[in-house]
């Protein structure tokens, strides 16, 4: 019995490590290949024989990757700011004020989470076509400017903010906009940072809608550009791997910096149900 127990202390980490290496294997292979060229690419060895950054240089100079990278950054940041502003404002309003129609508005916003994007993309596309939003940043961004999920999340957090703190501000003669932005917002910073990270990563990886609404190569976001680029360069797998690396690196960096917030945020929204 005793022996059994000590054995498992070693077995568990060992199995987790082996399986974890299998999980990371595609990424390791991707990065390794992005530094290979020529016959090296088809070599079954992780270490490049002649490591080179030429693939990255080629991507930078001879493709539209810089455009796609910039587009994804612009869209990701703009949508994230919009979501932070509006979702927290609506969440705050729905948790801290009493007014007729409040319950109905909350339920309607919640119900939008049930509508699948696949159902909305066709009307959105028709709308964009008629209003000239195809191939514009606004066209890529407008569907995501607010979210039912973010509103729900922020409302939960604002509910925990004591009313006394807000009333103190009111006695000082602050208007409601100030009370929200200067008193309430700083108290929900953990929720705001979780929402910001989700929103940015979600937009960075989004594929279907940006694919539909952009026709011009220079308007593609990174995933859309990558998809077309790969289709074109299928015989040059080292270029495909370099492109994939460029698309994953920013998320890797964000994950390393914000690991705790991301994991806590996911767990928080999940357990709530």
């Amino acid at each position: 019995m005793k022996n059994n127990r000590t054995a498992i202390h070693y077995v568990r980490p060992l199995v987790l490590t082996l399986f974890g290496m299998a999980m990371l294997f595609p990424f390791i292979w991707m990065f390794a290949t992005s530094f290979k060229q020529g016959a090296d690419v088809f070599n079954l060895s992780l270490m490049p024989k002649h490591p080179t950054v030429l693939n990255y240089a080629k991507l930078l100079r001879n493709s539209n990757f810089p455009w796609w990278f910039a587009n994804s950054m612009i869209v990701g940041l703009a949508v994230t700011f919009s979501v932070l502003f509006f979702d927290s404002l609506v969440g705050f309003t729905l948790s801290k004020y009493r007014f007729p129609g409040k319950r109905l508005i909350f339920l309607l916003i919640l119900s939008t989470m049930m509508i699948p994007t696949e159902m909305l993309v066709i009307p959105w596309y028709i709308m964009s076509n008629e209003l000239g939003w195809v191939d514009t940043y606004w066209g890529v961004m407008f569907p995501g400017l607010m979210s039912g999920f973010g509103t729900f999340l922020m409302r939960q957090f604002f509910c925990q903010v004591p009313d006394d703190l807000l009333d103190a501000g009111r006695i000082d003669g602050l208007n409601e906009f100030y009370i929200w932005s200067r008193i309430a917002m700083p108290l929900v910073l953990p929720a705001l940072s979780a929402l910001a990270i989700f929103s940015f990563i979600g937009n960075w990886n989004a594929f279907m809608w940006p694919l539909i609404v952009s026709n011009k190569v220079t308007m593609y976001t990174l995933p859309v550009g990558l998809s077309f680029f790969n289709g074109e360069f299928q015989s040059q797998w080292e270029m495909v791997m370099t492109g994939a690396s460029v698309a994953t690196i920013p998320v890797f960096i964000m994950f390393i910096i914000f690991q705790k917030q991301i994991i806590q945020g996911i767990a928080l929204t999940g357990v709530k149900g």
Partner: protein
Amino acid sequence: MIRQKTASHSLELTKRRWAYTFLVVPILFYVVIRFYPTFYAFFLSTTDWDIVSKNKDFIGLENYRNLFSDALFWKTLGNTGKYVAYGLPVSLFLGFVIAYNIDRIRLGEGFFKAVYFIPYITSMVAVAWVWRWLYQPAPIGVFNKILMELELPQQKFLFSQTQAIFSILATTIWADIGFQMIIFLAGIKGISTQYYEAAEIDGAGNWDQLRYVTLPLLKPTIVFLIVTGTIRYLRIFTQVLNMSYQGEGGPLNSTKPLVLYIYDTAFRSFDMGYASAMTVVLFLIILTITLIQLRVMKSEE
């Protein structure tokens, strides 16, 4: 007294006015960008509109009748069912096993969480192409080269009508495990140690504790993961478009899910009416699942 009352009354009114002011733009957004398009999709599903012609002719339920006799619709619906039926249980099982074991190690919890979670947050387009490369025939694909080294027979993977869907599923599960694991881990950590102590006093071993304490208490977590997972697998699209032969859900539609068929119909053939009818079907399936979840959660309480 009366003065105080009117003062607080007017304060309430001011606050109410602010509340409505805050909500003007958001309500406009939700009406124009969420609700109107939803109704519009229902409307389009009763027309034969092809985006080029000026008028949208009302054809009643004909699109739905056509769906009924459309072999490809049933085929893609069946494929979608396969993605859910094979993919979700496997990723749930692996996610749980990993979470359970991570919870029970003394060192490196954060490290293992990161390792297993990272595929979930990376771009599906990027990883789909990495896997597509791994699956290529020798001398290009890594899997086949490893098989060759081991003197095992080569596999066709994405080029095979029988293997392709499972090859795509493997990638999907690999990317999905991290999410299940994190939620399970949060659920496991939320179980009070008192239950385990009581079980131990009753002489329950590890297996019994898992069976009679951990799993029953994780029921809300499991319900949540089944529902969100079903919806996620029902909407499978990106990996199939990027991994399957020529991006068309091949070979011979063997991997094509419903959403890819919708995308093809709407944005490659521009048959907006017919595609809308399919999105309505998808919407109804998701609605049913969500309502079942609400029902189950309510009966829990």
